[in-house]
């Protein structure tokens, strides 16, 4: 029954301990709404059929409702509304009160990414790793405007405000991956300010955390995926760059397939002649690409907003070169070298 109604109403999976209780109230409320609309609608139709106008000179009696009927009109809906309210508020208080044993994760929202920091040391961008079955409290703040931390599958949402902390707790029931969405309008990148919660088995989480703490990968901002997730170890520079781009959130704004996004696409970017907002033209060589990471606002490509944060101090030198190599590898005609001979055709991209 629960699953049937959930699917009928397009509710997402119930992945936190809140979800099931909330959905139960949801079903009750929506069903009473349907029944109420149905009753009102049917009564109106019945009256319409029964009391159709039979002649244009028809008269009707003057009817005043008795007091008890008006009282009924008030008490029936009011008792339903109050019932909803008290059941709901009870749940609301539970949701707003983090248990004392909860583990803390600090969350910082900024245009347009989520940053997570664990009291034990490691931190991550856009990827929040938590163990299943444990109470987690998020302590959240924003660096610029108001954002809102929303995970539909957990049925949790809380605004993330600049200048103060808000908190939100949850307990994820089983391992899985769930999307984090920003629910408070925050500008051009609002709809792509998305992250991911990875719920891990508790022992996997401990392993991952231990690895992070050991400092084996301390230079990396994002905790690297665990072995269990089957990510290959360090590859060549291009592969590393690809991973860095994903981990640092570059691909939130830059596409690699030629489509226009918040920032310019990386496809064929290397050695592209770009027109800047100043009107000058520039060759997108290694130097320009590096400058654009460290101080993006200095040379903005015409037609884009100066919205990219600077990565000075946030990217290590190897990461920067890996990114540059990755961008260089993104050529739609990567196989062709040297000047073309004879008639040329638009090359098909092979993927």
């Amino acid at each position, binding site marked *: 029954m629960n699953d049937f109604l959930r699917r009928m109403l397009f509710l997402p999976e119930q992945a936190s301990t809140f979800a099931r209780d909330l959905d139960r109230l949801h079903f009750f409320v929506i069903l009473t709404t349907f029944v109420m609309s149905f009753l009102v609608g049917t009564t109106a139709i019945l009256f*319409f059929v029964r009391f159709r106008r039979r002649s244009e000179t028809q008269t009707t009696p003057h*009817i005043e409702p008795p007091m008890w009927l008006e009282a009924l009109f008030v008490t029936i809906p009011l008792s339903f509304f109050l019932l909803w309210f008290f059941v*709901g508020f009870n749940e609301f208080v539970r949701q707003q009160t983090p248990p004392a044993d909860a583990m803390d994760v600090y969350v910082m929202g900024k245009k347009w990414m989520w940053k997570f920091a664990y009291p034990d040391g490691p931190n991550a961008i856009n990827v929040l790793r938590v163990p299943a079955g444990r109470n987690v409290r998020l302590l959240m703040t924003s660096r610029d405007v108001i954002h809102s931390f929303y995970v539909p599958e957990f049925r949790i949402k809380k605004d993330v405000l600049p200048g103060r902390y808000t908190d939100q707790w949850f307990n994820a029931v089983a391992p899985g991956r769930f999307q984090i969405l920003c629910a408070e309008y925050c500008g051009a990148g609002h709809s792509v300010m998305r992250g991911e919660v990875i719920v891990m088995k508790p022992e996997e989480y401990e392993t991952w955390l231990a690895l992070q703490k050991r400092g084996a990968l301390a230079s990396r901002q994002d905790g690297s995926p665990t072995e269990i997730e089957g990510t290959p170890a360090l590859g060549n520079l291009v592969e590393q760059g690809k991973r860095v781009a994903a981990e640092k959130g570059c691909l939130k704004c830059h596409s690699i397939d030629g489509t226009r996004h918040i920032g310019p696409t990386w496809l064929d970017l290397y050695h592209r002649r770009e027109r800047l907002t100043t009107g000058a033209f520039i060759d997108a060589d290694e130097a320009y690409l590096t400058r654009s990471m460290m101080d993006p606002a200095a040379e903005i490509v015409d037609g884009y*907003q100066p919205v990219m944060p600077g990565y000075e101090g946030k990217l290590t030198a190897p990461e920067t070169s890996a990114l540059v190599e990755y961008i260089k590898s993104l050529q739609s005609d990567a196989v062709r070298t040297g000047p073309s001979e004879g008639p040329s055709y638009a090359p098909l991209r092979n993927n």
Partner: protein
Amino acid sequence: MRLSETTDSLAGAPPLETLNYLTDGTTVMSWVNTRDHKRVGVMFLAAVLVAFFLGGLFALTLRMKLLQPGPFLMDALSYNRLFTLHGVVMIFLFLIPAIPGAFGNFMVPLMIGARDVAFPRLNLASFYLYLLGAAIAIWGMVHGGADTGWTFYTPYSSTTPTQVLPILLGVFVLGFSSILTGLNFIVTVHTLRAPGLNWMRMPLFVWGIYGTSIIQVLATPVLGITVLIVAVERFAGFGMFDPARGGDPVLYQHMFWFYSHPAVYIMVLPAMGVISETVCTFSRKNPFGYRAIALSSLGIAFVGFFTWGHHLFVAGQSTFDAGAFGLLSMLVGIFTAIKVFNWVGTMYRGAIKFTTPFAYICGFLYFIVFGGMTGIALATTSLDIHWHDTYFVVAHFHFIMVGASVMAFLAALHYWFPKMFGKTYSEGWGLVAAALIILGFNATFVPQFLLGNYGMPRRYYQYPDHFQALNVASTAGSTLLGFGFLIILIYLVIALRWGARCTQNPWGSKGFEWLSASPPPTHNFDEIPTITQMPHDYRTHEPPGVIRVS
């Protein structure tokens, strides 16, 4: 008990040679300088219809973009500007002034047996303020356009590089227009009622407008102050709402919703008034529970002021506040429920005729029950957490704003069209358009409820792929809705130009506005009528066109 000779002298259609308010002076100056409440009403009607057309175009463009999850048709900044424009135009230029400005101005003096509103010049001034505010806001939109959403949440609105100031200034000026309209109605209702028209005989539409006016006068100044502070914050670095300068962004939300929640009732109370009138006329029946309907308007106006906090359940207000505001929100629902039951009760033992306005009444009843109850569901604190700022909220308030207010606006437009212009429109096309609109509306917004359940946040330029099917369904519905409005536009323009001359009281209504000729002469009544009974008393039969108020 005979009322007065006046009524009898108005019996039957007045001779065509009699000057009515439309033919009494046909120069442009005679309109621009008019102090006639009916002409001001007609000018408001024309202006809000233009605004509605613009806002509708913006909405359709937005829906077109949402056919695709990725970038499509426009970039993110244009999308954000467009939904801001849609909201600002629909709320401040259409919904708030629509029914009070157009039909309230026209009907209230006629219904209470007055020759005009209490302050005719102020009335005209409020129209010009509306035009000024609209001009400033639209200039701002053309000249860059804000991307803040109609809610102007700080600190986004105080830091975005787009042009927010002109729109804030426009909203500020529009607020004054709204205050003056409200003030005028309050004084009019208190001082200009015809002899015998005591409060418990007043038409229910007048009750609705009266309740609205109280909110307009009391709440709108707060909006004025709020947008002014945001404006000062932008150009002078005031810092009241900006935490970087020691301010509090949530304070803005409290102040904004202190106006904007009651503003929902500014938009919906007049609509309820329209339904109270039309449901009586087309059921040919006295209002069931007149007192309950009348007083619940005041109840909504009063309690509506104490529910603003239900917009802040996830915004970081205290849990206690959330509980208090949630509980108070339940009470507002009760007043609406009383009205709904009494409207349905009015049909009991009536003589119902299914006409175009009645089709909109049916639509209204269904939409307000579903829209209202989903509103109560949203005020159920814990459920709001999942739904807050998702398409569920979007669907809910479109059910109230379009499903209730616009349906009532259309019912009023069709019901009073003969009264205002003395012409009849095509009933057949009227029903076709009504069917299209009600169907199209459901097809547009029911998928949005489901999208909200599914977890799609509002104001999303791009969205995850799994939301696409429901978005496509919603866009398909919106085109039906658009066609419906287009049909109305066409047949009403035709009716205005070539429509048949109607009788003085084509619906056989016993509402007091039909005491005067249709269209009424400039001075409304040769002699002020004396009211000796309740409106919509259908115990006696009179031939259409004659109302014997005795």
